[in-house]
């Protein structure tokens, strides 16, 4: 059902050409990616045409146009189900019980848990989409005098998407069934445009004063339209009847439109003296439709300066070994409005119904759909950056170093809230400007490239570190996040590092009854009265003889202390080799998948669980005993039992290529290459993939392993042909 390998194919062809008046380039590509399931693929044909035409020496225009056509079958999300399904349940029922009329009924319901049969779910997948998308970017540029450029550019991104599906009727069990089949079609289309208008003045005075000034106006609009139709009860078994028109039962329809707009006025001045002293100042005034009147607009200024000291006369002596050196300092603010539209409004949900009447009849009703936050405003990210760029030894060694501080003011965040607020959103989440957060970090990049005879090589190392700290969050308490257990896994508090796991401190397992009884406070109160040997010992940090909120502490940090990237390139007589490595160090993962050891709810457990789990004194100090009802809450308490070191070092890419020599090929240029992605990983992490958890969630809620589609290993064989 889930395959170890999936085929990816990728072909592309490009040509370019032109003369002084006219330039063009054209590329055509084809990409096909099968999913790792027996169902699902993604197919894409894309074309890109770039043209530019110079009418006169003061007027030019251009058009980039990139249509693409995609087709896919929706890839199911069944990893978790496949892992949870108990292995003693066969895929199918005994053949004697098979239903000739509907083969979808022939699958076996799990003997032991409530997981739906993943093989059956996969067999029922019938969900295809087609998307036609066009990106267009026409521009006109006028240069009335050589120093002045007026440019207007109108970018359009439009698409049209159709999705057809068929839901089978089936009956595997009372809790695993769909009583009526349904055929449906969803349409969506979108028209997004961006209009940029700029006037740029660029001039040099007295030979050494270089000035660029720009003013501009931009406007953006994003429009989405959606229509859905479906009908139940398709007669017969024929695929030909999988059309909405063929349905005979209940009809379903939905449709909506969403619009978002943005506008900006901006100005920028850049000045440098003699390519030694640089000054830049800019201001932009941004408006967004996502905020209520009065909060739509905000101003974002920035200033930066740089000094290229290698150009100074007093550095002349150093030019032998120092090719370039520059010191930069910058400060600026940018806005963030990446939230859903309309969150400042309170709306009604008209989709509900009640019933009244002696003869019962439907009574269309309304409940609160969204409790809006009219005070929402722009988030401002304030950035201070100090940096050095330098190259040495004939440009063989280059170095870039930056230290920065990014402060997010009025951070936008959907905060979980108390359920007594009555907010209908999941976990009572309401989007608000939650407060202030600061990231302080550094980045160092070093590169060396050289050759020894025919043998060329280059090595690059990128090192970075960052500390994210909450400064002041709005409201009384800490910002809680991270669901999956009865309590929130993550706590963010004023002055503390963000997204840390917060819970009980696990202290190994009780190996025998003596240890259970010995786990008391000073007054002899038994701290875990429901525990047995093989259960986790949790620490009673405040010594009050019971485990409660006051015994929690920070038990892990998902953000790494250090991130390291390494790339190595070698070439020798037509052979080329490239390797990229990436790793993070000192980060923790909350391995929520450890709950799979519990076998709770009759779910499948990890292979070897019986041996790994505690089954007698000294057999384990990590994985607790298997129990029916987990009275000790080994698997439901947020505790350090789940926290693992998520450090890893991974080979992200290896490529080996060979370019055939000119003497064989003449004007043709042929390169063959083989590459592998994610070939190997060094980690102590026991879950599926240490890299994935950090990509889930958001900045205040990350590092929880939810067993999402892991990073796949990919092998690629390629042919480049140029002529």
């Amino acid at each position, binding site marked *: 059902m889930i395959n170890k390998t999936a085929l990816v194919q990728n072909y592309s062809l490009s040509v370019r050409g032109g003369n002084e008046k006219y330039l063009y380039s054209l590329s055509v590509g084809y990409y096909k990616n099968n999913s790792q399931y027996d169902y699902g693929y993604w197919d894409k044909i894309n074309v890109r045409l770039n043209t530019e035409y110079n009418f006169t020496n003061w007027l030019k225009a251009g058009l980039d146009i990139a249509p693409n056509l995609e087709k896919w079958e929706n890839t199911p999300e069944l990893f978790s189900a496949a892992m949870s399904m108990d292995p003693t349940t066969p895929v199918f029922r005994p053949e004697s019980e098979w239903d000739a009329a509907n083969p979808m009924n022939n699958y076996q319901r799990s003997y032991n848990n409530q997981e739906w049969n993943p093989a059956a779910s996969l067999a029922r997948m019938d969900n295809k989409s087609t998307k036609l998308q066009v990106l267009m970017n026409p521009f006109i540029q006028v240069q009335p005098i050589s120093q002045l450029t007026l440019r207007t550019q109108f970018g359009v991104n439009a698409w049209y998407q159709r999705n057809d599906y068929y839901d089978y009727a089936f009956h595997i069990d009372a809790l695993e069934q769909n009583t009526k089949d349904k055929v449906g079609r969803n349409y969506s289309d979108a028209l997004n445009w961006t209009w940029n208008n700029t006037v740029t003045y660029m001039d040099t005075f007295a030979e050494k004063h270089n000035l660029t000034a720009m003013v501009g106006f931009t*406007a953006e609009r994003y429009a989405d339209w959606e229509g859905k139709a479906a009908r139940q009860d398709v007669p017969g078994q024929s695929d030909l009847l999988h059309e909405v028109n063929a349905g005979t039962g209940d009809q379903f329809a939905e449709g909506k439109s969403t619009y978002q707009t943005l506008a900006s006025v901006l100005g920028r001045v850049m000045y440098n003296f003699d390519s030694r002293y640089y000054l830049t100042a800019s201001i932009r005034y941004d408006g967004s439709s996502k905020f209520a009147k009065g909060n739509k607009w905000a101003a974002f200024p920035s200033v930066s300066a740089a000094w290229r000291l290698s150009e100074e006369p007093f550095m002349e002596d150093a030019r032998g070994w120092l090719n370039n050196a520059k010191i930069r300092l910058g400060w600026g603010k940018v806005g963030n409005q990446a939230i859903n539209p309309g969150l400042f409004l309170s709306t009604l949900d008209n989709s509900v119904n009640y019933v009244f009447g002696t003869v*019962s009849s439907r009574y269309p009703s309304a409940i609160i759909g969204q409790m809006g936050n009219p005070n929402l405003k722009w988030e401002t990210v304030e950035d201070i950056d100090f940096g050095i760029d330098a190259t040495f030894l004939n440009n063989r060694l280059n170095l870039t170093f930056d230290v920065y501080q990014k402060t997010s003011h009025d951070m936008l965040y959907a905060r979980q809230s108390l359920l*007594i607020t009555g907010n209908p959103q999941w976990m009572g989440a309401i989007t608000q400007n939650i407060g202030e957060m600061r990231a302080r970090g550094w980045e160092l990049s070093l590169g060396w490239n050289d050759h020894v005879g025919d043998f060329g090589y280059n090595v690059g190392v990128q090192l970075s570190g960052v500390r994210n700290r909450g400064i002041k969050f709005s409201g009384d308490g800490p910002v809680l996040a991270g669901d999956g257990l009865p309590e929130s896994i993550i706590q963010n508090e004023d002055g503390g590092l963000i997204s840390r796991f917060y819970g009980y401190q696990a202290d190994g397992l009780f190996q025998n009854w003596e240890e259970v009884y010995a786990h008391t406070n000073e007054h002899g109160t038994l701290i875990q009265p429901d525990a047995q040997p093989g259960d986790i010992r949790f620490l009673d940090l405040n010594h009050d003889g019971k485990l409660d909120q006051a015994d929690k502490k920070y038990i892990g940090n998902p953000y790494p202390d250090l991130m390291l990237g390494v790339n190595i390139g070698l070439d020798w007589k037509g052979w080329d080799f490239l390797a990229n490595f990436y790793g993070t160090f000192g980060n923790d993962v909350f391995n929520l998948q450890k709950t799979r050891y519990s076998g709770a709810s009759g779910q499948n457990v990890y292979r070897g669980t019986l041996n790994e789990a505690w089954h007698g004194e000294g057999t384990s100090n990590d994985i607790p005993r298997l129990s029916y009802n987990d009275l000790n809450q080994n698997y439901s308490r947020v505790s350090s039992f789940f926290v693992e070191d998520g450090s890893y070092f991974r080979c992200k890419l290896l490529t080996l290529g060979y370019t055939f020599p000119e003497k064989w090929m003449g004007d043709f240029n042929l390169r063959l290459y083989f590459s592998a992605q994610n070939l190997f990983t060094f980690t102590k992490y026991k879950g599926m993939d240490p890299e994935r958890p950090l990509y889930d969630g958001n900045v205040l809620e990350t590092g929880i392993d939810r067993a999402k589609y892991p990073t796949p290993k990919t092998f690629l064989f390629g042919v480049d042909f140029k002529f």
Partner: protein
Amino acid sequence: MKKTIFSLAALAGLTLFGSCNDFLTEDVRGQENLDTYFESEDEVNTYVGGCYFQIAKGGGWWQVYNTWLMSDMTTDDMWDGNTTQDDGYQDITHFMPNGQSSGILQNFWGARYQGITSCNLGLERIPQVNMDEKLRDIRVAEVRFLRAFFYFDLVRNFGGVPLMLTYGEGAEGKERSSQEECYKFIEDELKQAAAVLPQRSQYAAADMGRATRGAALGILGKVQLYQGKWAEAKETLKTIIDEKEYRLLDNFGDVWSVKYNNSEESIFEVQQMYGGDAYSLGGSLTVVTGCRNGVGDGWSWGQPTSDLENAFIAAGDTERLRWTIIKTACTEIAGETQFNKFIENNSSIGAITDQKFQDYKKTFGWTDEVYTTGYIIDPAQHKSSRIIRKYFVPLDDRPEIYNTDKIPLNHRVLRYADVLLMYAEACAESKDDTQARWALNEVRKRVHLSEVTSSGTTLRDAIRDERRLELAFEQCRLYDLRRWDCENGKKMMCNVFGPDGSFVKYNTGANADMYEQWNQGEPSDKGTRFQENRDLLYPIPLYEIQHSNGAILQNPGW
């Protein structure tokens, strides 16, 4: 040329900028804006319908019905029942140490506060709507009743809760009010609503199902009774009786019949109907509590205990027994005309010759007749091999789809028999034995039981026994057990549960029921973990404790 292009661009830019604030105004489309709602009578009606929807969140079972069912599971009347699947109930119903984490209670808590929030907004906005004043007052009173009911449903389960009374009120730092304060608030609200709400008979046919004066008084009486305010309860309940809006149906079997939705006995019901797949207008408990091995697709949660069955037998109450419990190997189901379908269904456990049935014969002393003439509720899949008759819907009355949120059986929240028995109790407790006996015997007469002539504590106990039998599975038992004082100075709950509780001793002793004893998929020692100083209330959901940052305190014992 240059100039033209320049000025055109500039002009376009300026025009657009001038209209920028229009350009940046994008309302949410397709959803009505709350700020501009409440303009007309229609809008008020629609909104109030939504407040009713909150009673059980339509037909969805997991927010409200789930907790209602679990309420009876936490008593000696009902097992969790399903022994083939893991449930979330045992944490609560078996009094486990991790009860605070119950997702079921968390969902219920959230759902109730969503209902309360809807009502809070309605109570603020509806009075300002320009519409027929009399109707407007009624609509306000309906919403007021619903909010009081939602609070009552919280307080009887959790004790005192935070009183959120205005829309959009800040929740941070909000603390729980005491149980007394909450009940005081609920009483005041119900009195206000009762003064305005129409009687059942005053509503048009199309309005059947709306809150009535009787409903407000009935819940008020219950709130007073729960607090032991006997005199006040007696007066309130007497008002309902004297106003003669309700009567007992002639046949007990009709009380929970689909054909008798909104009957004259019924005081308040969750309205449900079959709405196909397009609308979730039906109820769910029929399916949730149905037999797991058919007929129909039951989930087998919430099964009657033999302990309850014994109580019926001891009372000689055959009529209510057959309309309350369906037991495996039975040869008829009360009210079911197509019983043969249920016999045919026995093949769902395998053939008569299969080892499974042969084992059952040996274990339970069955004969082949059981297979050929009885209805087998598979003992392997059902803790007690019994299912609830009250929620059962005969085949003739079942809609096309036998599935959750499709069942047209209204859920009886309050009915006249309950009012009579509450009145009887209030009278007995305030030494008016004559009135108490009258009300009690009204209820007994219908099911052909002899008149009770006793008085004093004996009479009081007879009323308590009667409540259990008449109102089994109607979300009364738990709150009765929690409040009834016994001779030994303890609440009745403490005598039923705990290591020496009557229910525990019976189930773990030699006289235990053979089905319940045989199937330990749900352990028979339910109740041993009961703690007197902890389990007379449900725990506040841990989520709420954690998110309140210390403002909301947990119930004692956790």
